[in-house]
């Protein structure tokens, strides 16, 4: 079957089997920044934004996303022109192995768009779907706080 998706701003038609999950379509089409961690809806490595909202691409069929927009980490910044969140994650030491980071930054982006001044508890809740076994989360919370501040223009 064919579906139409707008991925990182580019609209295209994709051929998928009904059983194809969104993660498998995305990775097949070269969006390998979408990571497969637990592959069962718990770890959040595969988080993408669907019409701006974080979802887990490993527990949905690709066809469910038909006619919607998808944002992966590539859609929010590049190495030469990173998003403030990407910059802050690096500067604050929030990136260790980095496997969880694309998903986590996308969750953070959705959070900050809705709530530009989150309290620490709100950050924790907004990022509760993203496991990280390396960092202990301390630096990641700090990175989101700092990015929020910069995005608000307070710093």
């Amino acid at each position, binding site marked *: *079957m064919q579906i139409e998706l707008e991925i990182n701003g580019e609209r295209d038609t994709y051929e998928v*089997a*009904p*059983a194809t*999950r969104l993660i498998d379509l995305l990775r097949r089409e070269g969006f390998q920044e979408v990571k497969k961690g637990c*592959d*069962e*809806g*718990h770890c*959040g490595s595969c*988080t993408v934004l*669907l019409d701006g*909202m*974080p*979802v*887990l691409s*490993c*527990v*949905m*069929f690709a*066809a*469910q996303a*038909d006619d919607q927009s998808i944002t992966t980490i590539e859609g929010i910044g590049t190495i030469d022109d990173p998003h403030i969140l990407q910059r802050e994650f690096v500067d604050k030491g929030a990136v260790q192995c980095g496997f969880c980071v694309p998903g986590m930054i996308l*969750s953070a982006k959705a*959070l900050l768009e809705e709530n530009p001044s989150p309290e620490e508890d709100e950050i924790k*809740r*907004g*990022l*509760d*779907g993203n496991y990280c076994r390396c960092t202990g989360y301390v630096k990641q919370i700090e990175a989101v706080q700092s990015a929020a501040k910069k995005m608000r223009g307070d710093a």
Partner: protein
Amino acid sequence: MQNLKEFERPQSLDEAVEKISAKPGRRLLAGGTGLSITDSKTTIGLVDLKSVGLDYIEDDSDAIKIGATAVMRALEESSLLQNYAGGLLADVAAEVGTTPLRNMITAGGNITQLRVWSDLPAPLLALDAEILVTDQEGETTYPAQKFFHRHPSQLLDDTDIVTEIQLPRGIENYSSSYTKFVAVDDSYAVTSVSVVLDMEGDTVKDVRIGVGSASPSPARCPEAEEELVDAELNESLAEKVGEICRANVNTTDNVWGSGDYKSKLIEKLVKKNLLQAKTS
């Protein structure tokens, strides 16, 4: 899903009824968080309910109506639900899964599959909700008690579509309290307790206690509710009622907790939530 060949996208409920009834081996798809990782050889087609217009939460004169494909986040943020019976369902929805999952998990999926992660059924029991089901013959309304008496799959045919949850009028101003007891934040409930309460002074006028995840089906505890009605709710009564619930609610072992531990939890959580509902 190795034999899955079709993906139907009906644009109306009627069309969905038609599609699901057209062939054996078709299954309804709501959020997909369970189905997309289910290994089923018999499923040959999916009927996606996304576009049939069931993602509403609306106020109606007879009831508050929650469409089957409304997601947890919508429930959580609904001012209607936040202001209904102490915001019980909004509170419950806020604790389902994680942020991305709350954008995906639907009310209908959560109650129809009735698995260990289904947090809505027990509070729906406590709210005396009704569940609307549509098939080719028309619409049937089930009281939550009946819908959750056994696993809904025993009540429903493969072609039945759960379309709506209705919350009754008359209890909007009741207070409530809810505890989902978990080992870590996004884990599945070891046990959950919902209390819905109506008081006049210190006296209980009406009360409902729903217990979830303690056994495969959610439970009310009528013995405890009877004990409370017309009585003065204080700590010692709450404690006694906790004990009554412990004695009367069936619990079973699973990896999230032993039946024995769940029984102890029920006692303490019923007491705690009764007292919290009283003061909230």
